């Protein structure tokens, strides 16, 4: 979410989680899908308002799904915001979003691979890769790359990307990673490429 269409039935998933902020929704809310027959057998993980059915002196029964797992005061504004974000994505169409993102990825891959001192990690195939590109700029540490790109208005992530074993395998101390979303444009890819040339200049390589 939101880069690939997800169908929990087709996947046969027992559980599936995603975060609101990854689908252009608010922070502090997300979705946890659980298969009904599994959720029915599970006890509440938290007790509080609106999750009980009958309370006796020595026993109680719990509300039906999903209330059993939604104790206390709900994050209403988060849920409303998340629903609006999902409606928006649904209106654009997941396939259209993916096509746009992969077009940008293909363009960026082509431009990056023309620069002799840039190494692209991972496959050149956009379908296998998805709309993210990790790369290395020869002689320039990803922290410095990210800071300099940031000053050009380009936000990339730099670091291990929660994948230290892979970084060891790549023999890279860290990497820079650009990711595309539905609001990015080919002109922004051009800014990225021009800014990468500037990284080398700032770090003392002619170009």
């Amino acid at each position: 979410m939101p880069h690939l269409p997800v169908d929990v039935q087709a996947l046969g998933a027992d559980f599936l989680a995603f975060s609101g902020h990854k689908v252009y929704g608010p922070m502090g809310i997300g979705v946890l899908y659980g298969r009904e027959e599994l959720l029915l057998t599970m006890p509440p993980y938290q007790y509080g308002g609106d999750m009980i059915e009958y309370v006796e002196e020595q026993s109680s029964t719990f509300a039906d799904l999903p209330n059993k797992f939604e104790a206390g005061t709900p994050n209403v504004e988060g849920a409303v915001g998340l629903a609006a974000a999902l409606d928006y994505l649904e209106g654009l169409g997941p396939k259209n979003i993916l096509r746009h993102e992969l077009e940008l990825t293909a363009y960026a891959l082509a431009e990056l691979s023309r620069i002799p001192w840039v190494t692209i990690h991972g496959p050149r195939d956009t379908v296998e890769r998805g709309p993210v590109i990790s790369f290395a700029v020869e002689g320039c540490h990803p922290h410095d790359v990210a800071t300099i790109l940031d000053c050009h208005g380009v936000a990339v992530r730099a670091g291990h990307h929660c994948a230290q074993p892979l970084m060891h395998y790549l023999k890279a101390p860290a990497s820079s990673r650009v990711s595309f979303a539905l609001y990015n444009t080919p002109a922004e890819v051009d800014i990225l490429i021009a800014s990468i040339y500037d990284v080398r200049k700032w770090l003392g390589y002619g170009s």
Partner: protein
Amino acid sequence: MDLSTLYTEIILQHSRNSQNRRQLPCATCKERGHNPTCGDDITIELQVEDGRVVDAAFTGQGCAISQASTSMMIDLVRGKTTAEAQQLIDMFLAMIRQELGSDVDLNVLGDAIALQGVAQMPARVKCAVLAWHTFQEAIKTGA
């Protein structure tokens, strides 16, 4: 943010061609420091005799800021007593936290004064202070 306050000639020199990047055959203490979230990883070796840092050197890898900062710190503490070094480290850390008054003379920090601009860049503070914290650990455990 103005990049020219950060990626200065002096920082690039220290990060690339430092005389301090080597191993120390007579090291009396050694400490590794790293930023696990971002990957800067340095090892500082010190030769401390009678409470004085006779020599110091480092190895490792990381961004220009972390490597330059390490080299600058080593220039600064070499020849100082551990107490004097500790004072300079406190001063450097206070400079980065922007806690120093305008009356403080930063020139005693030597080349490390060039890292002043890092105070404006929260994402890079960890890179700049790594070596200084590592030195503190080294003299705590080794001397």
